[in-house]
């Protein structure tokens, strides 16, 4: 027997909620596949854009850093560093942006007409972002070898960093999706906030630069940023150098993992405690 009754807003019975979510797992996978497939469907290059787009971002930022910041355009190693890190950032960015958007769009009437556990939609968006990221690595692998990074042992950190990035991105997406239901301005602010976060994270610049400038405060603030630790692990995993002499990849992985678990837990609890209101507030 199913019962619909008045209850105070709050977290639903978790076992029941997770079982119901599991029932819709195939929908999450197919919705995600459809999302990936539907992108760029009306363009000449089609799915190639999934690989080309982050690559072009990499080229633009390489030129930007080379010319504006005076890094020069002859440092192939820097190109590999920028492209690899940007792929990771676009992966995180996509998880957050699409996750928030999935609730706002209502996912083809799913939100307004069915009782599917709402968490399925941001999860499907995270799957899309992860799938696009893995595809974009097709372009990264040759760049990795051309820029002389070669084969190295640190690559073992990448699967862990991947899982933690999915969890952290999904957690942030769940938190912001709820905020956006109550205040639509969040979705307007989101691209700007993510762009700012990109520049505050060691994605296109080496963190050591700030340290060499002796800005201790910036360095300290930088380490509060969970994406600082994420990028340390990704950078090293891609064969780059540690940002600082006193850095430890294991420590950064631990810190980022704690952030990832915390964000996912907080996001999930807030999201599920509020999802009853999504249909009427959308």
């Amino acid at each position: 027997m199913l019962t619909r009754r008045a209850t105070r807003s709050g977290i639903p019975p978790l076992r029941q909620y997770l079982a119901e979510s599991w029932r819709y797992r195939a929908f999450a996978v197919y919705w995600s596949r459809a999302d990936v497939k539907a992108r760029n469907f009306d363009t000449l290059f089609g799915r190639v854009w999934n690989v080309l787009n982050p690559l072009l971002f990499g080229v633009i930022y390489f030129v930007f850093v080379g010319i504006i910041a005076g890094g020069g355009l002859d440092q192939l190693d820097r190109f590999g560093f920028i492209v690899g890190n940007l792929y990771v950032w676009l992966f995180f960015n996509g998880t957050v942006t699409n996750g928030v958007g999935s609730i706002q769009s209502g996912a083809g009437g799913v939100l307004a007409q069915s009782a599917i556990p709402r968490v399925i939609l941001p999860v499907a968006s995270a799957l899309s972002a992860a799938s696009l990221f893995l595809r974009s690595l097709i372009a990264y692998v040759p760049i990795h070898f051309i820029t002389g990074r070669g084969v190295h042992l640190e690559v073992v950190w990448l699967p862990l960093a991947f899982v933690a990035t999915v969890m952290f991105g999904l957690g942030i997406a769940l938190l912001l999706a709820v905020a956006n239901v109550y205040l639509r301005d969040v979705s307007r602010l989101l691209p700007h906030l993510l762009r700012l976060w990109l520049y505050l994270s060691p994605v296109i610049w080496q963190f050591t630069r700030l340290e060499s400038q002796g800005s201790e405060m910036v360095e300290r603030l930088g380490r509060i940023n969970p994406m600082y630790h994420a990028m340390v692990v990704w950078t090293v995993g891609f064969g780059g150098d540690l940002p600082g002499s006193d850095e430890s990849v294991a420590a950064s992985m631990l810190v980022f993992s704690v952030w990832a678990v915390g964000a996912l837990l907080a996001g999930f609890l807030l999201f599920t405690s509020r999802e009853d209101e999504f249909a009427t507030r959308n």
Partner: protein
Amino acid sequence: MRPATDAIQIRDLSVSYSVVAERPNAGRRTSLVRSTERRLIHALNGVSFDVAAGQVMALIGGNGAGKSTLLKTIVGVLKPVGGQIDLYGRPHLLAPGMGFNRRLSGRENVVLGGLAGGMSLDEVREKQDQIIEFADIGGFIDMPTTTYSSGMFGRLAFAVATHIDTEILLIDEALSAGDAGFRERAVAKVQEMCRAAKTIVVVSHSSTMVAEMATHAVWLHQGQVRRTGELGDVAEEYAAFQAAGGETAQMDRSIADR
């Protein structure tokens, strides 16, 4: 305690939700922030009735009476603020096109729509050919649905929605898709669903044919049950009420929340 024959028991159900509305006289003011406010709508108030297993129940009432709200509460989209609904079976709201991605082909949307409707992957695979055959849109099935006419899209969406097995079927959408020939098959299909499902609740305007299958009716007026009983009696009383000009705009149940 559940009587052996009931499929749905609704007791003292109240549902409220808030909507964003423009403030009165907003156009005359210049403001840096939005000129809207959130209003609380008391859509249902103290609604109680039972639907027996195997019964086809029609919901009757004017616009804004709370019929759609009631169906959405039964299916679980909206949450009661008071009272409760006990369901002895899984409900399904017939919602053509739910879960579709317009950029994908019809064939791919059959899978997406079926999964969104609660079918398992095996079920979707098993019924895919049947659904495609029912939609009868020829070679377009492998084309993106953006290339479809509205009639073709409606046929496909309807075909998917009506191939989902359920114990409690809720019908609110207008069931008019495609040409006259297809409409005939569509009504026959819904009638078949009605026979297969143990219980049906249908909003009276959805489909004359389906509503005609109803044996009992609930008349909702301004979010409250005005009358329940056999369809003929309730419909007759409702018609008399309408003729006397009793059906007025029913949005006066909202109050300013802030």
